[in-house]
């Protein structure tokens, strides 16, 4: 009888243990579920924004939406409208709404040049006004590899064309590099010939100069002899010079009469000089500083030669 009583108390204890275990397990399961729900954001407050684009390329449902590189939401829906446009709806955590200004734009970017595409909300310059819930934002695609390649091609094609033209000109046998080289060769040959000719002439001049110097030496020795002879004859020459000076005095006296007309001739020469100076002034840069005169006006003279006075 006591054995049966012992058995009943063990079974009751076992039952209580099972109950406790089941209760703890249920609590753990509920906690896990709650954690999963919280983790999935079921109790999170979100705000919806949307944008319209021509193509849904690289945009998929669930794609991350970032602000300044931080994930703040995801693409909730991608739908095609009747007019062929694509409407993309995003859900953003309400906590991050403060970063989405009314003039913010959505950019589709790639992580690096070939990485996975992400949507980045770029706030606008006016931070004073935020975008309303369910607002429609503007959208743009960052230039990818294709656009970059097109840009590079646009830049390079004209350069390549120029290179083609330049190489064509250079290769031209008449005007290009071969022709120029031929001309340079011809010029250098002509220069060589000229130099050789000049060399010969300089040699000739050197020989002539030597001969002249020799002749000058001979002349100097003759001059020495002449001076010695002159020294002997000088007294007589001085007497003769005195006579000549007497003649000169006479000539001077006569010149007093004859020189004034010659001076008058000088005025004619002066007139010629004036002409020359006038001509020089025409050609010389200084004329740029001289003002041009006004048109001339000659005074009326109806009888320029006084012919009316006396009957001819």
């Amino acid at each position, binding site marked *: 009888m006591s054995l049966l009583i012992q058995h009943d108390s063990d079974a009751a204890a076992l039952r209580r243990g099972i109950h406790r275990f089941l209760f703890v397990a249920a609590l753990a399961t509920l906690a896990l579920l709650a954690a999963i729900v919280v983790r999935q954001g079921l109790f999170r407050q979100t705000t919806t924004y949307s944008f319209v684009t021509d193509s849904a390329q690289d945009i998929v449902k669930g794609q991350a939406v970032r602000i300044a590189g931080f994930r703040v939401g995801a693409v909730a829906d991608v739908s095609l409208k009747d007019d062929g446009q694509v409407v993309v709806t995003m859900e953003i955590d309400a906590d991050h709404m403060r970063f989405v200004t009314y003039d913010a734009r959505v950019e589709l970017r790639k992580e690096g040049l070939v990485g996975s595409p992400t949507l980045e909300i770029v706030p606008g310059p006016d931070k004073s006004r935020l975008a309303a819930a369910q607002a429609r934002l503007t959208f743009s695609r960052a230039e990818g590899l294709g656009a970059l390649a097109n840009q590079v091609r646009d830049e390079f094609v004209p350069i390549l064309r120029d290179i083609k033209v330049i190489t064509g000109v250079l290769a031209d046998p008449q005007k290009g590099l071969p022709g120029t080289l031929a001309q340079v060769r011809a010029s250098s040959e002509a220069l060589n010939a000229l130099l050789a000719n000049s060399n010969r002439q300089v040699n000739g001049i050197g020989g002539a100069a030597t001969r002249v110097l020799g002749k000058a030496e001979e002349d100097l020795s003759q001059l020495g002899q002449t001076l010695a002879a002159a020294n002997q004859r000088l007294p007589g020459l001085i007497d003769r010079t005195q006579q000549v000076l007497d003649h000169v005095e006479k000539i001077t006296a006569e010149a007093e009469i004859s020189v004034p007309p010659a001076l008058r001739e000088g005025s004619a020469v002066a*007139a010629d000089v004036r*002409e020359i100076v*006038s001509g020089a002034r*025409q050609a*010389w*840069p*200084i*004329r*740029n*500083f*001289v*003002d*041009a*005169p*006004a*048109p*001339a*006006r*000659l*005074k*009326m*003279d*109806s*009888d*320029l*030669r*006084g*012919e*009316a*006075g*006396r*009957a001819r």
Partner: protein
Amino acid sequence: MRAKTLLIATLILAGCAAAPNSATSPAEPPRLKAALEAESDGAKRYGRGDYAAAVRRFDEAARIYASIDDMPGAARNRLHLARSELAQGRAEAALLVLESADRGSDAGPTLDTLLLRAQAQLALDRHAAAQQSLAAASGQCAGACPQAASLHLLQARAALAANLAADALAHAEAALKLLQGKDEAAETGNAWRLIAAARLAGGDAGGALPAANAALEIDRQLALPEKIARDWLLIGDIRRKVGAGGTAAAYRRALDVANAAGLADLARQAKEALAANNEVLPERKP
């Protein structure tokens, strides 16, 4: 010597450096400026009595003006050129220049052209042609035009040449009246000379002498040898007509002036007048 060379080199460099600096140069284009300078130079030479050089400069100016299609400038310089030719006694050449000036003008001969043409025709004793030119000029000078005095003087010359002494005197006196108070000494002298000649031709030799003296006084002030010599010849004629003394002295003065100025034709006239007055000229030493 070295300093002088340096100075010349500096001047050349300064001139060359300044050449392209057109900012300081006047606004006239170079060819127009050259034409104006040639014209101005010609006028200076004309004023000095260097008519041969004036002819060259006016001809150059006229050609430059024509080359830049400045017809008024070309026509003006052709008139200057014709005037210079007339002053040299080359009336035929002056007429040719005036004809070329007419060809360059669409509006026919101007009043100045007609007056110069009449002047040249009178110098060549083409009296009928001169009358025509003067008639055309009168048509262009109906009112009080600036050339009215010159027109009267030329009409007086034409009348005197046609032995119409009264008409000549009337025109000369009208011209003198118009010239009063004006800075036209040459024309005033011409007017007095014409008055003297007209009075002499009209028999008023007594009235002619003061007029001839007035002309001589003005021509002396203007230092015009040819006119002075002619004035003395006229004074000699008047004195001979009046019968007063000093006739030979007047002719001698004319001869002296003509000889000094190298005016052979006038010297010959003076000698003839002296010979006609029974004056024996002393032998000149060679």
